[in-house]
């Protein structure tokens, strides 16, 4: 917005009349039309993609018309019983909660050290934690699945949890390190001066300050784990499929069942993700994940 304000130069100036002229400018420039047009096209496509799944899951028959002939809920009950969705959802939640808890336990202490201390080999350690995030899951997923099968850990829920931890622990570390860095170390020094031991510094000073950050990164880990396809797909057995893998399997084995049951399962998956997302966005601002936005200066 500051560009449009300053572009007028001294002629328009910061007179009381600047406010309406700025609004007119934004509407008039072709660049703005182009940008909003592109955003609009993207959003319409998104709506079409999500909407057609939603409509199809409720439709009776839908072949050559704009909308289905009639509406029904039968596909949901079919999908629910045929795919054993209750068990799948329970597995998904078990995996997600276990991954969140373990990655916080393993990640937060490490990120504390990375944020507070310089030590020899810090760059290597940092790189080691960064690699699993930078690498796509399928690249390390195949060797990881090999190892997990070798030790008879894959093919059940423990294998799925272990595999999902691999990108999640580094993710917690990478989001928590900048968060800890911004906490003033003098608070800890003051506590130590007053005789607090490491443990009580952790529980009574750091934990309350870290709680918002831990909450934010664990919600993101939760969303990631529920949506993680490749690693779960490579390590899951028949009883340990999560929702997204069950969805893929049902789509890939198309032709046996009605398309609508697949769609209704997709809607169930989508609603689980939406609930998580709404909860997540109450705690996390997506644009602040990379760097802090300098809100007060962008007028």
């Amino acid at each position, binding site marked *: *917005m500051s560009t449009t304000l300053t572009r007028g130069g001294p002629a328009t100036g910061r007179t009381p009349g600047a406010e309406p002229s700025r609004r007119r400018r934004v509407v008039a420039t072709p660049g703005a039309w182009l940008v909003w047009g592109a955003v609009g096209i993207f959003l319409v*496509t998104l709506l079409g993609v999500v909407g*057609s799944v939603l409509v199809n899951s409720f439709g009776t028959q839908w072949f050559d018309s704009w909308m289905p002939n009639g509406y029904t809920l039968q596909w949901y009950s079919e999908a629910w019983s045929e795919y054993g969705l209750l068990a799948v959802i329970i597995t998904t939640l078990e995996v997600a909660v276990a991954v969140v808890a373990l990655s916080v336990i393993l990640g937060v202490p490490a990120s504390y*050290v990375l944020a507070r201390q310089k030590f020899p080999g810090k760059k290597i350690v940092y790189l080691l934690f960064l690699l699993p995030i930078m690498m*796509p899951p*399928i690249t390390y997923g*195949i060797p990881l699945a090999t190892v997990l099968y070798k030790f008879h850990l894959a093919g059940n829920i423990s294998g799925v949890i272990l595999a999902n931890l691999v990108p999640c622990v580094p993710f917690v570390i990478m989001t928590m390190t900048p968060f800890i860095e911004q906490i003033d170390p003098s608070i800890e020094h003051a506590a130590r001066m007053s005789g607090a031991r490491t443990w009580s510094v952790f529980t009574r000073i750091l934990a309350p300050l870290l709680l918002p950050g831990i909450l934010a990164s664990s919600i993101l880990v939760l969303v990631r784990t529920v949506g993680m396809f490749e690693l779960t797909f490579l390590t899951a057995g028949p009883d340990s499929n999560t929702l997204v893998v069950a969805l893929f399997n049902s789509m890939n084995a198309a032709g046996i069942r009605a398309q609508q049951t697949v769609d209704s399962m997709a809607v169930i998956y989508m609603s689980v993700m939406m609930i998580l997302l709404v909860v997540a966005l109450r705690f996390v601002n997506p644009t602040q994940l990379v760097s802090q936005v300098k809100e007060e200066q962008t007028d």
Partner: protein
Amino acid sequence: MSTASRPMARVGKPTGPLLRHRLADRGINARLLLLVPGLVFIVMLFVYPFLYGLTLSFQPMDGGGPFDSYRRFFEDSFQSSTIWKTLKLAIPSALFNVLASVPIAYRLRGKFRGKRFLTTVLVIPITLGTVLTAEGLLNFLGPAGWFNRALMSAGVINEPLPLINNYWGVFFSIVISGFPFAFLLILSYLSGIDPSLERAASTLGADWKERFRRITLPLLAPGLATTFCLTFVLAFSVFPSAILVGDPTNTTRVISIAAYQAAIEQYDWSFASAIAMIMGVIEIAVIGLVQLWRSQFYVGSTGGKGA
């Protein structure tokens, strides 16, 4: 306290406390133990499997020399062409995601009504994941889907466009899940650039083109490089949508499908590991090239907080 106790301790135990203090000066102390659980975990579940896969890739299942798995991959054009197919899909789509994001993010970086809403809407496709996007694309862009129907009733086309089960289906799926990701990253990089720099430039008489080219773009270049790398990695490992909305036996048989088929369908873990290693090498090569390009630009603070 250490200065007071050190001489006395030196008398009692010649090296003990002194060594501890010397190590502490270099940053080695008991606090480092907090690093151990995370480090052990990464070594056991990331480094070890990776090395195991690397050694396995040199031990072909059916005997033969150490490089047989690799030779098999490169000599069989059905396998080795997957590299080219993947790059042909991943580089254009990653470039599109980044280049389309820049003008939009540049325009939308200020404060405006509904910004929070827009960013929320854009996060949705990231969380939907590729499997759901694939299902939606099959419905939406299919021959009887809303998109073709709208174009046909508008009289733009006579026959439905073939948009699914081919290259374009996978391309769209990468754009839908990758574009919001690239946009949000670039938006946050742009917000991290101190706006007073641009104001200073405009005070000195630079128009918006010059401001963008000489101030914003050089400061944004590292962010662009990182964003390109991340979206490229996402696009390079495209797997579910290549199977579901693509043409997995021919034009979109990407390298991850080859790796998956070797591992899960043929149980040839050696060959699968070899393909995974080839994937890793190509990714690192592309990321390295991008970082090399990035190093030509200004490196340092962008003036924004925490950037």
